[in-house]
């Protein structure tokens, strides 16, 4: 008997991945040591969920994704996607999943986008009618109409990313893994990609697992977020909770008319002025609080010229998590 949550579509139980790394220490001498890229991770993702999987570089995100696609075999633990053991039945699973690696492309570099889709048509043995329908839909929603006959090498990064996302969806995958889908994209392209993913999840119920560096991706897309660092799952829950756990702070950058002493607001003790540089000042405030009342108060008391709000980055949130856990 296996203990199974009825809704567990992606299931990881104590999954590990250990790499043997050989390092040269001198002439003809080598030293082997083991690196735990993924260290006993367990989680479940229900069908139709949209989950963010975040962590700093080298935390084990891509390794997890590679195990979920079957490219890497776990060193230990149990892993199932749609009931399939990925590394044992990689090909069978491939027909049910879609993968987008932000920094790699599945598209044919020198040929028009359309040719790559034709390839997917045959590779996934998609019935003709369904292929046409899916392609039409992706072309419309991702605005690819004018790009279909353009060689992929001539596409901008944002256009190529949309092209890659479409390529991953033509065979109606039940789950979509996205590894850094917005990396390097401009603001307009980012919001377009996010909008598409949101609709995909809402309309088709596609399960989405997304790794990212950009907390805004998570904010706009995922109710649930998992944080991984040094191969361990540090947090699994709502994004708002993450900010509380990590006591993360946002930064308000204000430009005043002239150089003034550091801003002090009696009514808002949680706000600290962290830096002053000429007429520009940096104020840190809890990420869970709204910036609006703060801005209003500053505008009332100080000669405000301009301002911007900076979101906390993942590294900072995780650093805070360590601190609050008492220096793990």
């Amino acid at each position: 008997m296996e203990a199974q949550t009825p809704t567990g579509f992606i299931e990881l139980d104590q999954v590990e991945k250990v790499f043997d790394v050989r390092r040269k220490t001198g002439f003809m001498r080598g030293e082997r040591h083991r690196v735990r890229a993924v260290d006993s991770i367990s989680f479940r993702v229900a069908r139709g969920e949209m989950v963010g999987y975040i962590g700093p570089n080298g935390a084990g995100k891509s390794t997890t994704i590679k195990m979920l696609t079957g490219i890497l075999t776990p060193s230990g633990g149990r892993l199932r996607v749609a009931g399939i053991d990925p590394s044992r039945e990689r090909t069978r699973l491939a027909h049910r999943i879609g993968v987008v690696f932000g920094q790699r492309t599945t598209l044919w570099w020198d040929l028009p986008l359309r040719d790559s889709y034709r390839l997917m048509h045959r590779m996934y043995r998609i019935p003709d009618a369904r292929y046409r329908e899916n392609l039409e839909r992706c072309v419309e929603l991702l605005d690819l109409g004018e790009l279909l006959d353009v060689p992929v090498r001539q596409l901008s990064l944002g256009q190529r990313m949309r092209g890659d996302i479409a390529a991953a969806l033509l065979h109606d995958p039940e789950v979509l893994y996205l590894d850094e889908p917005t990396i390097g994209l401009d603001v307009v392209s980012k919001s377009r990609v996010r909008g598409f993913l949101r609709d995909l999840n809402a309309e088709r119920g596609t399960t989405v697992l997304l790794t990212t560096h950009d907390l805004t991706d998570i904010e706009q897309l995922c109710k649930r977020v998992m944080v991984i660092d040094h191969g361990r799952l540090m947090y699994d829950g709502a994004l708002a909770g993450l900010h509380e756990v990590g006591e993360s702070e946002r930064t308000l950058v204000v430009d005043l008319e002239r150089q003034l002493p550091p801003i002090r607001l009696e009514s808002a003790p949680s706000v600290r002025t962290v830096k002053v540089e000429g007429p520009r000042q940096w104020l840190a405030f809890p990420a869970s609080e709204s910036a609006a009342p703060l801005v209003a108060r500053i505008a009332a008391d100080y000669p405000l010229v301009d301002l911007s709000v900076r979101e906390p980055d993942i590294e900072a949130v995780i650093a805070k998590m360590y601190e609050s856990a008492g220096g793990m």
Partner: protein
Amino acid sequence: MRLYAVVAAGQFRRFATYRTATAAGVFTNTVFGFILAYTYVALWDERPQLGGYDMSQALSYVWLGQALLMTCSMMGGGFEDELIERIRTGDIAVDLYRPADLQLWWLAGDLGRAAFHLLGRGIVPMLVGSLAFDLALPSSPGIWMAFLLSVALGVVVSFAIRFLVALSAFWLLDGAGVAQMAWLAGMFFSGMLLPLTLFPGVLGDVARALPWSSLLQVPVDVFLGKYPGWELVRAYAFQAGWAVALLLVGRMVQSVATRRVVVQGG
């Protein structure tokens, strides 16, 4: 199977988009054809019937060598640089999760490329050569067909060798060294520099028995009608034998390599 047809057609069209490169390549092949042709003329003037070829057969050898240089990738220039690069950068991960066979995928692509190079890089030098010199062109269409089949087998052998070269990148940080060695061996043992029938004794026997002779020496001899009757079947069997053997070795290395990646990471 239709997938691999699409892959082959895609590669054909991909190489067809490099129009300037194709024109420059045709020009280079033609110039080298002339240089080699005049060298051979000097050589065969001194030693008629060298290697069992008369003058016009020797000249046909030169121009066929130029016409097939890219098709059979005797000096590299096929898919292997791309595959090595994909292994080095880790893009190979993308290829591995696809529901397609790695070796068949690249073989199909290379056949598409070779078909383009046969048309795009082969016809013009051959035409120029036959206008400028007296070549021994086959009169029967049967021999032309037999020649094309031999070329196709040569492409497969060439692919199988280069696939092994590319897979070495899984173990070596830089596949360039192996690629260079393969390139040198290919140049020499395919008969690109001089017909293998010119080499005396053991060296000649060994050179003719190695897989590379399938790339140029065998197709040219088919073209020149050196294989009458059952001899032709034996020539095909030689090529096909190497093709199958090397493809099987490639499959084995591929499965070791992917297991290594799957267990050890990219």
